């Protein structure tokens, strides 16, 4: 009996191993070929110049040579601002909209949900074009609308001034992507069992205090997830700036973020020849920044959070 059951366990272990290989193998292979290997190759490329190994020389150059470090720190600083605007505007708006949408008995919730998510499905090129047109000092409706609201004097060529261009772009991106935190948080809110909120209501809590004291703590893990997604997305951002301001990210590099700096460096621009090695160094730094942020979140925040399962 014992022998037989041992045999069965052995056989089933082998079968399990086979299954694991069968099910994970293809994904692992594809992931390795198309994601892990390019990443490693990028790091290898960043340690070379014209095929010769130079160790960390490219990074030393990136951080210390003024021709490289100036643009790099500028791009990193702009990227931090870009991220900060998303955290300060996009995610709170997402949370508020999700909270309103998930209120029981709200009429037309599905319509609002669709409308609010619509911009996320638009191409960045279209979003960039529409906003550029609206904000155009020549033909844009921006000035007319602001004049109608009595603040026409505040209208400026927002996308053309170094002081306003970056924040304007960030807000355009917020408009487009507010649907993502909205949907994730909305789903988390719907997941909260009604008996919890009902119990609170029976105890005399208002909608607002139910949100603050019951719902918000329960969706904290999702907010953390949204934050980390925002972080990864923003430090990888490129397309909106490139679409609206081009690869030179004007005015005066005021909208240059790591993505556009990488693009110019790696592929070159106009007469500027591409430099695959320095480009790979910029990409590696971007990877390091994103990795550090994600790890910080993973070990610093997520592990301390309690997940509620209902």
């Amino acid at each position, binding site marked *: 009996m014992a022998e037989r059951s041992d045999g069965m366990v052995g056989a089933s272990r082998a079968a399990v191993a086979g299954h694991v290989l069968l099910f994970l193998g293809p994904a692992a292979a594809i992931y390795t070929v198309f994601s892990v290997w390019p990443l490693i190759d990028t790091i290898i490329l960043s340690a070379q110049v014209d095929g010769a190994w130079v160790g960390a020389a490219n990074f030393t150059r990136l951080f210390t040579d*003024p*021709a490289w470090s100036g643009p790099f720190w500028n791009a990193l600083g702009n990227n931090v601002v870009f991220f900060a605007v998303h955290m300060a505007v996009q995610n709170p708006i997402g949370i508020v909209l999700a909270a309103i949408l998930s209120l029981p008995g709200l009429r037309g919730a599905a319509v609002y949900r669709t409308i609010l998510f619509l911009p996320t499905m638009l191409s960045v090129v279209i979003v960039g074009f529409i906003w550029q047109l609206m904000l155009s000092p020549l033909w844009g409706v921006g000035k007319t609308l602001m004049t109608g609201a009595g603040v026409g004097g505040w209208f400026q060529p927002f996308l053309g001034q170094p002081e306003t261009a970056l924040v304007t772009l960030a807000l355009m991106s917020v408009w487009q992507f507010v649907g993502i935190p909205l949907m994730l948080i909305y789903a988390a809110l719907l997941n909260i069992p009604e008996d919890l909120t009902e119990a609170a209501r029976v105890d005399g809590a208002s909608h607002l205090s139910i949100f603050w004291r019951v719902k918000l703590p329960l969706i904290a893990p999702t907010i953390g997830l949204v934050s980390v997604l925002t972080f990864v997305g923003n430090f990888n951002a490129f397309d909106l700036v490139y679409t609206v301001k081009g690869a030179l990210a*004007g005015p005066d590099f005021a909208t240059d973020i790591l993505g556009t700096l990488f693009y110019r460096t790696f592929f070159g*621009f*106009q007469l500027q020849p591409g430099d695959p090695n320095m480009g790979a160094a910029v990409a590696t730094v971007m990877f390091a920044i994103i990795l550090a942020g994600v790890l910080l979140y993973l070990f610093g925040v997520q592990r301390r959070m309690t997940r509620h399962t209902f």
Partner: protein
Amino acid sequence: MTVRTTVLAALLATSGLGVAAQELTIESWRNDDADIWNTTIIPAFNTVHPEIKVTFQATPPADYNAALNARLQGGTAGDLITCRPFDASLTLFQQGHLTPLTGLPGLENFPEVAKAAWTTDDGATTFCLPMASVIHGFMYNRAIFDELGLSVPATEAEFFALLEKVKAEGSYTPLAMGTADQWEAATMGFQNIGPNYWGGEQGRQALIAGTQKLTDPPYVAVLETLAKWGAFMGDGYTAQTYPDSQTLFGLGRAAVYPAGSWDISTFRAQADFPFGAFPPPVRAAGDPCYISDHTDIGIGINAKSGQQEAAKTFLTWMTGPEFASLFANSLPGFFPLSNHQVTLTDDVAQEFLSWRGKCESTIRNSYQILSRGTPNLENELWGASANVISGALSPADAAAKLQDGLAAWYAPQK
């Protein structure tokens, strides 16, 4: 296989007794021009050389360099190669993909400045035939000029007086340009008026030789003049893009448009008012004038082509007056670079072209050699010009920044 050989034999038999078929394929990024080549230029060539069959094969502009490189390396590229200016083609020549054109009959019809874009740094070997250039200047709305009683300015003082007058009158934007895309500030601003300051080729060569610096008076003075432009550009010009500027002028809402000659066809299609052009005004009456006559397209021979002689025959034909005239009239705004006198049917294009007779031609000073390093002079010029116009940077600071950037990697400027 047998069918193909039979067909080929039949073709050979019909094409002439004992004469091997000569076929040439042209590689180009000018897919917009395919019609002109197929219906005008190649038939004209065939009336002189019926024995050579020419095919025009275009690749979309954005893919051209990569596709051409791949085909050259794989040995499948066409016999004639349309050449990008400067370093892109120089690299192809250095890799042995292009036949040196030294001694090609007809090459003497081209001035040195036209050949600079396709000549080795030491000036010894030319590897592509200059085909077309674009000329910078200013276009103006004749209707507005008539209405406000303005005349074409010859000097810079007259130019600014004119802009002042349009501004004071208030109905029109004096100068249709923006700084949002940055390149217009450099290309239609700095490189447009600059040659009058640095003396065209002389100044351009001096920068390459290191005998002049970007902080020298002529360069600072160009930037100082540009700094005065901002006051005459439209409201919110810092957010005005190149298409915005084109539309502004095309709709008849602006008096003067700092132009590249390629804009002619844009406004022929858009504008319902008569427009003209004038060259960059000189600094003082009687000064010699210089124009940016920028080399843009060339054509060379694939070194691995088996049709070297036929290819040279074609290129020699291209050096002649017939090609110059056909090409220039088919594509108003792109000008042939040979010395032949060409008459154009488009009056604005003819006006641009006529400046060659009274002014000295030069090319953009950042294009040859000086944009090979980091920071890149051309890209730096975009930012510097835009920032000077918008007032974000003083002309002196901008010049210092440009010089520092160039000196950082270019030995003759250290």
